[in-house]
């Protein structure tokens, strides 16, 4: 029911329109070309347009960063902003060996560092910059909860600069590789500036990084660079970048099955697969050794980190790289926390209204169940990539594997929706309508968080801006709206009305006293239902790619 225009149909249609266009040579036609190429020159990513789109995306980030950050002016624990500031303080003033250790200077119960060492190094680098101008904002222990207009600005600019240095080049690299390698099939009538804008103007990412305050742009940017490197056949670069991404935020492991299966599938098709696998394995081990160098000389210190950063997840990556299976995957999530935090649009949270998972199972059983469910969820796409690795299939598989983690794994944040959103935006030219819809639902799933951070104004503006760019005149050239089937339009309309109603209800109504979180729960179950439909569809789509390619092969053989 969601089937987008069939690739073959689209091909003939594009040819038809091209023929029609070449048939007319009136001045109006020339003008039409000029008008559409003025803002959205197609396919070829001219440097000037790429710069224009990137600068516009930067401007929007700057404007969102004018708003408040998480935990602004709420003492005792504050929010993620304070966490990042605290990490800068710790990394600047304590020796490397003590970053993850509970010491007099470093009280781990107050925003202890719980990301891998690359995050710590990044905090240190930013700490040097901020320390040069506002040292009092990073003074050891006395700076807890430090807030000032100037230090907010400095902190905001560190995120902006990391975004500009990591995500932006990666996105431009990806878009140029995408069109050069012709990943999306027939490229006629596709607008590359529009595509770049879809990746860079992802409203969820902008709100979380530049509103709420986090550095997701770094790990996502590294992942995006790795994806682009894989598309341009540079597997070693890809492994390096992806390992760095994992070492910045362990959540990047949501993509690991896709990377692993795709690379494995490719290696199997080469002359000596074992050598290829070993080569990549060595690269991965090398990068990890480099990043973990200060902790690697004693098992003791690694184990310390282990408590707070789930090194097990990395262990899992090694083991899965060696295809030893998923023996340790059940240790993926932090132990001490519950199956979900706050309200998340995943399976466990949405169904907990009916089944009280937390009461029925102990934590360890629950973790085991979560792992099995996650594996089952990403297994089909995993198998598909080993069976027939392809560029497009890889993008789908990234989406499917990250969605399976988001929906079923243990201990998921609402912010983790950013991970499936990245590959979804990379598929924006394949699945435009669904991408718009997914952004819509993901934003809705983050709405309670945005309200807590008092970012509603930024939320509304960024959403409207995204919708406007999405529906830009001349933007995508493919009139999806009129060509889509009535069934799909009806379904999307119903969804749109539901989400609008949920927004209004959440904003305007007081929840009943007996169920103070009723509306959150409603929003999450609605989003969950949409996500499930979406990922089932993309899984089917990924498997259909296999059919198409094998069909093509057969046709070739026959002829």
């Amino acid at each position, binding site marked *: 029911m969601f089937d987008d225009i069939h690739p073959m149909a689209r091909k003939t249609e594009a040819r038809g329109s091209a023929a029609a266009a070449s048939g007319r040579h009136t001045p109006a036609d020339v003008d039409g070309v000029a*008008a559409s*190429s*003025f803002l959205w020159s197609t396919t070829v990513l001219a440097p000037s347009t790429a*710069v224009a789109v990137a600068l516009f995306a930067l*401007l929007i980030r700057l*404007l969102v960063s*004018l708003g408040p950050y998480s935990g602004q002016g709420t003492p005792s624990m504050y929010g993620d902003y304070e966490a990042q500031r605290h990490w800068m303080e710790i990394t600047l003033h304590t020796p490397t060996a003590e970053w993850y250790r509970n010491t007099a200077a470093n009280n781990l119960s107050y925003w202890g560092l719980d990301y891998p060492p690359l995050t710590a190094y990044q905090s240190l680098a930013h700490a040097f910059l901020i320390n040069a101008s506002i040292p009092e904002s990073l003074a050891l222990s006395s700076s807890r909860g430090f807030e000032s207009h100037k230090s907010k600005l400095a902190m905001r600019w560190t995120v902006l600069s990391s975004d500009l240095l990591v995500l932006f080049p990666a996105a431009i690299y990806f878009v140029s590789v995408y069109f050069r390698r012709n990943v999306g099939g027939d490229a006629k009538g596709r607008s590359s500036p529009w595509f770049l804008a879809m990746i860079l103007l992802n409203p969820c990412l902008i709100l979380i990084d530049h509103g709420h305050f986090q550095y997701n742009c770094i790990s996502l940017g590294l992942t995006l660079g790795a994806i682009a490197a894989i598309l341009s056949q540079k597997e070693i670069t890809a492994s390096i970048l992806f390992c760095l991404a994992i070492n910045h935020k362990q959540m990047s492991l949501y993509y690991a099955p896709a990377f692993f299966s795709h690379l494995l599938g490719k290696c199997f098709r080469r002359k000596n697969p074992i050598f290829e696998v070993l080569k990549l394995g060595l690269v991965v081990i090398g990068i990890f050794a480099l990043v973990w160098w200060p902790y690697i000389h004693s098992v003791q210190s690694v184990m310390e980190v282990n408590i707070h950063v789930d090194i097990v997840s990395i262990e899992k990556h090694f083991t899965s790289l060696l295809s030893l299976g998923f023996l340790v995957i059940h240790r993926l999530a932090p132990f001490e926390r519950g199956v979900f935090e706050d309200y998340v649009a995943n399976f466990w949270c949405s169904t907990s209204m009916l089944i009280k998972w937390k009461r029925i199972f102990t934590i360890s059983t629950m973790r085991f169940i979560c792992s099995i469910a996650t594996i089952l969820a990403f297994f089909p796409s995993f198998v598909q990539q080993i069976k027939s690795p392809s560029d497009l299939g890889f993008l789908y598989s990234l989406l499917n594997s990250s969605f399976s983690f988001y929906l079923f794994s243990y201990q998921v944040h609402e912010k983790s929706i950013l991970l499936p959103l990245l590959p979804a935006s990379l598929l924006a030219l394949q699945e435009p309508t669904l991408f718009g819809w997914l952004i819509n639902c993901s934003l809705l799933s983050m709405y309670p968080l945005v309200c807590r951070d008092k970012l509603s104004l930024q939320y509304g503006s960024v959403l409207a801006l995204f919708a406007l760019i999405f529906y830009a005149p001349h933007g995508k050239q493919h009139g999806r709206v009129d060509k889509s089937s009535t069934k799909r339009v009806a379904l999307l309309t119903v969804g749109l009305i539901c989400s609008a109603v949920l927004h209004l209800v959440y904003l305007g109504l007081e929840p009943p006293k007996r169920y103070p979180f009723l509306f959150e729960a409603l929003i999450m179950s609605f989003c969950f239902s949409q996500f499930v439909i979406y990922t089932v569809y993309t899984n089917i789509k990924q498997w259909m790619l296999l059919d198409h390619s094998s069909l093509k092969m057969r046709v070739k053989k026959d002829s």
Partner: protein
Amino acid sequence: MAWLGFASLLLRCLEEQQGRGAAMEEAVWMWAVAACVKALLIPSYRSTDFEVHRHWLALTSSVPLRRWYSDTSAPCCTLDYPPLFAYFQRLLALPATSLGLHPSGLLHLSPSPPSSAPLPVLLYLRLSVIVTDLVFLLAAVRLARRRLPIARRSIVLVLLLWSPALLIVDHIHFQYNGYLLGILLLSLSFLEEGKDLAAGIAFSVLICSKHLFLIAAPLYFVYLLRHYCRGSLWKASGRFLIMGGVVGAVFVAAFGPFFYYGQIQQVLSRLFPFGRGLCHAYWAPNFWVFYIVIDKLLAVVLSKLGFDIPSPEASFTGGLVGNSSHFAVLPQVTPLITFVMVLLSMSPCLIKAFQKPQAKHLIRWVAYAFTCGFMFGWHVHEKASLHFTIPLAVISVDSLNDARHYFLLSIVSCYSMFPLLFEPQEYPIKVLLLTLYAIAMWIGFSSYFKLVVVPAEDKVHNPSTSDREETFIGKFGTIYLLGLLGVELWGQLLHPYIFGSSLPFLPLMMISIYCAIGMVCSWAWQLRQILQRT
């Protein structure tokens, strides 16, 4: 979400009536994108003008009309715009009471610093600017619809609706220029369509809203006299009476009540405060900058040579609002002298309009008239350069030379407004706004003129695009823009490094002088165009 639904619905509706609705769709889309940016700018820095406008809302809604211009409850924010703007403020205050904004202090007479405005007040005033910008959108669509080819239309719309100077002045600094310039553009579009009477009404409404636009009144008078009041003596005088009656009615509606209350003297003294100096605290980049600089240099040189020069200490650098200025060597400048100079410099376009009143040259003339007012006027603000850059945007695609001129002028005009936003938080925003606009102009102009203007043989001789791009702004333009970059780098990096916090006025002075060079060139270029082409 509602936005999304609304946007898609709107676009769907617009798609149905393509062709006719295409200009509208494009314009609405661009306006909406700009509106998102404006909405995101709501928490940004705002100047004391924010408090001034808030106070006017309070004043007009809580003080009886006869005391509007004599009220001194807040000396910082006395009403000094003509009555129609005061009525407009009164109208803006109306929904506030029904929205229950009384407790937020929106309509309190006592002044409060703009940086600590409570959120409802901030939202209300900022949104009122965004909403009243719809007048500007309407005028832009009307103008763009007349200039038929699609490519030309979309470029003009981009230039008008995404103007960074307008964003800076209206949506960060805080003023209602979008609304006022919208009325100006409306009157220009009426003139282009030959609806002279409507244009006259629109223009008199504009003057009664902001009297700075009075500078173009001589031109309007000459043009309407020759274009509208033509024909036989009877017909001409009849039309003259009609126009006079209509314009008079607008003025009576605006000033009548104050005349009735015997306040007219008070109103006029508020509107024309000639007690202020020749230049604003920050010099607007016009002719008088050179006059002051030459005077200063002469004073220094002559006193070195042993002449006894009474030196007015730092009279132009210390912020001059409130007292008149004294020159050490050169003759004193009085308001009358500036008035005569403006009229003299404007005379070529007046003569042209008298000889051949043609609607197709009108925008050029109006822009030139405003340029003259900006160059030689008394106590000019840097924001007044909007009055001619915005109309010039409409004709910027008429020829390659126009495009080149507009490209440079709009950059200079926007850059001269940079000192309005002096906080580090807004610094990257203003730079990005200007850079994006420059890139958009670059892409738009080069794609347009490559396709349409460059003749076929030229394309054969000169197939590489780089040659043409090099010549787009010319050698002079490139050097000038590089110099602009140099001035900015000096002010931001080298000056603080070399001088520390001493000589704080020097970077501002350099911006003024450097931009004044560009403005004088633009004025001379426009004058030559008018003499040659119209």
